[in-house]
């Protein structure tokens, strides 16, 4: 538009000064005069004979530069033409005219704030996904996992669980039924399990083990491994009660509750691990095993397993209400010892639901008196911790508060 001033000595009002110019086509450094004119930034050849280029202020962008140097490029540039201004007054004048330049760092601070805010939003979103999305996702995926894979998976977790159970008591075998005098108990247990399995017609082969620990609990792994603690065995008064618990755990296996839980926790660790950048984190099986050992299933899953137990017990000719009986006994004990206030009303509801779906009928004995006695003694080495033989209605003061593991909730 306007022509360059003819004489350098002319008192031109726009600020001007020396600068280096690179045209982005070759690496040659040109010494130029830069004039911060009103319309555009004009780059004038050193000899002042012609205008090399005129840059619109709106297009100017700051490029990374050392302290004291203003390095300019242009928005959407293809050739990386650069202008380096070292004259502080001229740099200030350009900064004043170009809106996108950020010499004071205000835009930089805004960006940083936005990153922090968005990161916090992302964290919140991940947490919400973890709490609400993961269960839904796990519910959808669990049913489509092939049985074969689930069983292999269960084997892997089982190996891990065994080492965990073993680590806690190294003096004796951590599983009962193999020691001296324990074989008859093992035989009786196998009989009960076989009865249930044949009746169930489930696509799983169930391995039931008794753990030599005074915990009143039982748990199931994906694929058919079931562990009953000796503490729970000691609490059961009849074979029906034990069978009811085992049938309940079979329900968890058939409903794939363990698989779902592991999927969920794996998804969680993956989600958080990814965000924190530690992405390859190993030991997924360890996490899975710990999850199974320490977590309780949802109320819904427990109720479904209870119904499964009732149906299976009825079909097998056992007493479907026995599960309710042992549940209430465990809950009564817990009330004395622990503050698990939540458990009690839930247990009451569960027992009511069990009784509601149970049909009246005369249960057939699952085991003979001698067999039941042998089964009760399957863990010969463990000192009799429960007063179960003479009606365990009284609280059991000898029971130690269990380790950090929150397992002994009324899961069965």
């Amino acid at each position, binding site marked *: 538009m306007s022509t360059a001033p003819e004489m350098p000595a002319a008192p031109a009002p726009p600020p001007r000064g020396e600068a*280096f110019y*690179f*045209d*982005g*086509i*070759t*690496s*040659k*450094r040109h010494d130029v005069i830069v004039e911060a004119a009103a319309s555009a930034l004009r780059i004038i050849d050193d000899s002042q004979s012609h205008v090399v280029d005129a840059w619109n202020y709106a297009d100017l962008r700051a*490029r*990374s*530069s*050392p*302290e*004291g*140097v203003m*390095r300019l*490029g242009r928005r959407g540039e*293809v*050739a*990386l*033409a*650069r202008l380096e201004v*070292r*004259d502080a007054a001229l740099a200030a004048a350009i900064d004043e005219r170009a809106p996108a330049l950020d010499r004071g760092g205000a835009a930089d601070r805004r*960006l*940083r704030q936005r*990153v*922090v805010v968005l*990161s*916090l939003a*992302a*964290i919140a979103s991940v947490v919400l996904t973890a709490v609400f999305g993961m269960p839904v996702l796990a519910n959808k995926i669990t049913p489509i996992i092939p049985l*074969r*894979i689930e069983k*292999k*998976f269960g084997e*892997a977790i089982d190996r891990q669980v065994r080492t965990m159970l073993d680590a806690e008591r190294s003096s004796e075998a951590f599983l009962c039924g193999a020691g001296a005098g324990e074989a008859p108990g093992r035989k009786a247990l196998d009989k009960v399990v076989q009865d249930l399995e044949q009746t169930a017609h489930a696509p799983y082969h169930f391995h039931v083990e008794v753990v030599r620990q005074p915990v009143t609990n039982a748990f199931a792994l994906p694929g058919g491994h079931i562990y009953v603690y000796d503490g729970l065995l000691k609490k059961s008064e009849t074979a029906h009660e034990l069978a009811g618990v085992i049938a309940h755990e079979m329900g968890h296996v058939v409903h794939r509750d363990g698989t779902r839980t592991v999927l969920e926790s794996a998804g969680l660790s993956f989600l958080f691990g*990814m*965000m*924190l*950048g*530690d*992405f*390859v984190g*190993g030991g*997924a*099986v360890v996490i899975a095993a710990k999850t199974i050992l320490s977590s309780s299933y949802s109320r819904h899953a427990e109720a479904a397993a209870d119904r499964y137990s009732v149906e299976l017990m009825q079909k097998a000719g056992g007493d479907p209400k026995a599960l309710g009986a042992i549940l209430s006994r465990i809950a009564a004990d817990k009330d004395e010892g622990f503050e698990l206030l939540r458990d009690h009303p839930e247990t009451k509801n569960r027992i009511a639901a069990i009784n509601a779906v149970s049909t009246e009928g005369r249960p057939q004995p699952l085991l003979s008196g001698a067999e039941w006695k042998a089964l009760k003694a399957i863990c010969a080495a463990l000192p009799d911790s429960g007063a179960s033989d003479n009606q365990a209605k009284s609280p059991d003061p000898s029971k130690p508060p269990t380790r950090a593991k929150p397992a002994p909730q009324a899961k069965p």
Partner: protein
Amino acid sequence: MHARARTSCRLGPNAWPNFMTDVAALDPPPLPPVPLPPLPAPPIGGPPPLPGMMRFLGSEGAYWQLRIRGAALLLVTLGIYRFWLMTDVRRFLWSNTEIAGETLEYDGLATELLVGFLFAIAILIPIYAGIAMATLAFELPDFASALGGLALFVVFGAFARYRARRYRLTRTVFRGLRFHQDGSGWLYALFAILWWSLIIVSFGLAYPWAQASLQRYMMRHTSYGKLPGRFDGSGWRLFVRGLPLWLVSLGPLLAAGGFAVSQIDWQALGSVDSDGSLKIDFAGPLGAEALIGFAVGGLGLSVLFAILLYPVFQAIVYRWWLSGLRFGDIAVTSRLRIGRVYVIYLRYVGFVFLFMIAAGAAGGLLFGAFFALLSAVQISTHQIPGRELIGAGVGLLVYAAFALVLAAMHQVLVTFGLWRAAAQSAEISNAPILDTIEAKAGLSSALGEGLVDALGFGSV
């Protein structure tokens, strides 16, 4: 900065301390004997520095500020800020590195790194899921999947580093032109894995040739504008310089191990005594305890020497690497001094030591103050609701903050220190060529950077 530049001028090549000569004697031919006048470092805007000189302009204080603020933001954002921090750091390092009077420019964007990371995650997730599924489906033992994961990690890691280098080069602008890199990341990964296997098999003796070969591959595929790069460092040269280090640091271990092995009675080993137990007198006249003692002692000495000599090793490798870089007729020479690298590490060790003491003192005081406060208001810790959760949270926070500060110290004192020392030690020849180079088009994606990040290799 001003004073520092002056210092490095005063201690020019003619003023090297004598203890350097054993290594310096093996240096490449000395620089053209241009008498360096004891100039003060020209401030920006003043007269341009000597042609070909490299300088570093940024102050350590500014970098501390960048890193400490970055650590705080990393803590708050659970690490998401790392893409922005990395970009800021590179902007700082690049734009303060001056070559022949012009500074570099980093024009990468944090969002590119973020996208690259997400892209990498999208590639890695199905792969890892596939490994897990295959392990379950084909009844592979656990170690097989671990091995498979490790192999993928190594291959992808090498690939990613090559691609990350490409990203960084194409985002490096100098005098209005970009750097470029072509070549195949997979091929590089193959070479890298083969060479590193050789390094392991040869107890490290293959390292010089491995470095030379890999650097040659990388530099052959590097260009500044249209000016092609190459690498002229020779593996032999590095080998000759590094051999004394290798002998001193691995010598005790090899000698003790060799001696122990030579004393073993191989025929007695594994055979059975008359009472059915394994023979234990296979260890020769000195006995097994003595041999084990020698071996452990040798290992200890080796580790000690290796730690003490590590700065020498780094100085030698840096100098060799810098002095091997070529772009057309432009050659880089480095005069990085071993003493300088030692000072960098000693400062780091000193800072870490002081920080540990300070953190211990502060932690103790806070702990005491907390319980004093509790007893003052007569609350026992058992009465605080959610105390376990709060305790775990505070513990995690303290741990993360501690780790972040230590990482920042390493970044500032070692990484930054070495960068600055390397930049200030270097000089280029034939600087006038820099006025004649033409531009070449082309950018690259940040996938490699994303993989590097997802696989957990932190770097600048």
